[in-house]
């Protein structure tokens, strides 16, 4: 089985064995394939690209070819133990609605996204006066699929305003791994919540559930 991208491994680590998992924007079904094989989950993906769907089928990952909204309206409240939205939040038209829906059909939700508040983005904008171009935001402003970029703090605000409880927040490094090295780990562990992470983490994973923040 091919190795998972590190952020996907972090997400996979949050999922309990044998649970029911929906992955929104599941791409080629790598994460679900891993979860089905290793953690015996019952998985279901939603993917808009034909090529992604084809690979999911080959992997034996059940998948719905279509947009995220339609994928969710097919399901009962609490039909899944986890609903995952990994690196897709920034590309969807109605992020707030989608998160509401995720928390309706899932008991828990896992959301990961690139952090626009990372210092490199701030520096790029401040000094070059141009939109950042880096591994987290690799697209030029005019051809990017990202339409709703946000910072870690923006996302926390959104959760608060929606009465969503943040169970866990995990800042990740450039390559999607947890920050390594003593200082960085210290920063990640001690200075979360999370002004520091907002500055230092290029990416973050949130584990959410319904209820008070």
């Amino acid at each position, binding site marked *: 089985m091919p190795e998972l991208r590190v952020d996907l491994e972090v997400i996979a680590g949050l999922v309990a064995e044998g649970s029911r998992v929906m992955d929104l924007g599941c791409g080629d079904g790598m994460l679900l394939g891993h979860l089905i094989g290793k953690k015996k989950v019952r998985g279901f993906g939603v993917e808009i690209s*034909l090529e992604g769907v*084809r690979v999911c089928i080959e992997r034996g990952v059940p998948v719905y070819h279509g947009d995220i909204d339609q994928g969710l309206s097919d399901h009962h409240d609490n039909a899944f133990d986890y609903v995952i939205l990994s690196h897709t939040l920034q590309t969807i038209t109605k992020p707030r609605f989608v998160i509401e829906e995720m928390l309706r059909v899932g008991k828990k939700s896992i959301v990961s996204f690139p952090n626009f508040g990372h210092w490199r983005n701030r520096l790029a904008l401040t000094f070059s006066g141009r939109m950042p171009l880096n591994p987290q935001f690799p697209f030029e402003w005019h051809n990017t699929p990202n339409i709703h970029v946000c910072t870690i703090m923006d996302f926390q605000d959104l959760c608060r305003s929606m009465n969503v409880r943040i169970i866990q927040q995990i800042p990740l490094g450039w390559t999607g791994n947890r920050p390594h090295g003593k200082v960085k780990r210290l920063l990640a562990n001690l200075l979360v919540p999370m002004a520091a992470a907002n500055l230092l983490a290029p990416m973050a994973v949130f584990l959410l559930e319904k209820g008070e923040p």
Partner: protein
Amino acid sequence: MTLASQPGSVGIVTTQYVDLFTREKPLALDCGATLGPVHVAYETYGQLNADASNAVLICHALSGNAHAAGLHRLDDKHPGWWDDYIGPGKPFDTQKFYIISTNNLGGCNGTTGPSSIDPETGKPFGLRFPMITLGDMTRLQKAFIDHLGIKKLLSVAGGSMGGMIALQWALDYPDQVASSIIIGSTPRLSAQNIAFNAVARQAIMSDPHFNHGDHYEGPRPENGLALARMMAHITYLSEKGLHEKFGRRLQNRENLSYGFENDFAVESYLSYQGSSFVRRFDANTYLYITKAMDYYDPFPDPETTAKRLKPVTARFLVMCFDTDWRFDTSRSKELVKILNWNRKEVTFQELSSPHGHDAFLLDAPQYKESLAGFLRRLLEETTRQEINVA
């Protein structure tokens, strides 16, 4: 090189026949009537493996028959109806799978139907043939699969009405179907679908030669049947596809006739489709089978749906084509929603094609890849399970 010797062809095949049920032990039908014996026409391709775990049943649509792949004679101009998909190296790979195709109950290509001889009278049944349902067709197929000694089908696959039968299999025989592939289909006909079928039946029954269905010895209701087919044929293609193929091109003429002859190429194409259909199809079969489709409704309300789906273990692959308007994408999604709602394992894919409803019969790379991927995975998992058990 003949068609039969081309790589990927199953070659020359012969339709086979078997009698199931007897007068004493007849096939019980949903309408309360019984039939026996029942003649079944079928073809098979590939080899059944030792533990009979590689059997795949292919279900044909309204006007299809048991001849799904290969050629009957070397000089056949057309191979079986799904020849692009069945054969060595094709999605339904005959080097791996044992493919079975039967003609449906009520058909006119070798399985007992209204044109068959009624043993009571020694004459064709005509409209004395009992009303049949898709459930009855499935029950007959099940008896046939039992006859072959196969306990569990790796997959039941079909397009259009064949997809409805594939669904019915998963519902009626939940322990005996590992997967169900449903293409360009629907869990129930809409009022518009029923309306098209109703007009087709009216065209047949109002033909002066219809004679209450007793037309096997005299002139047949050819105009009515051709008309029914022409109308249906329009619904099988897309507006875009038709326009691209024919546009407003005139047929065999330079100028408009200013009369009611076939001016346009599309008119003569439809006439050809109608008249060639009449040569191979029975008008009464058309009546019975369209009615059976109209009646089909396995999920009339949420309680029945939940009850019917509870024991179902098959995984589903539901596919559709974006220009299909006979059973458009929303009809497939309707089925997917019902399956999701009841927590069944389902994969849904919408493919792009200019060919409308007929796309499910035509060669298309992405469609092939998905089917092949699904089947390959299925076989791998079955094999792996066997290894685990061993």
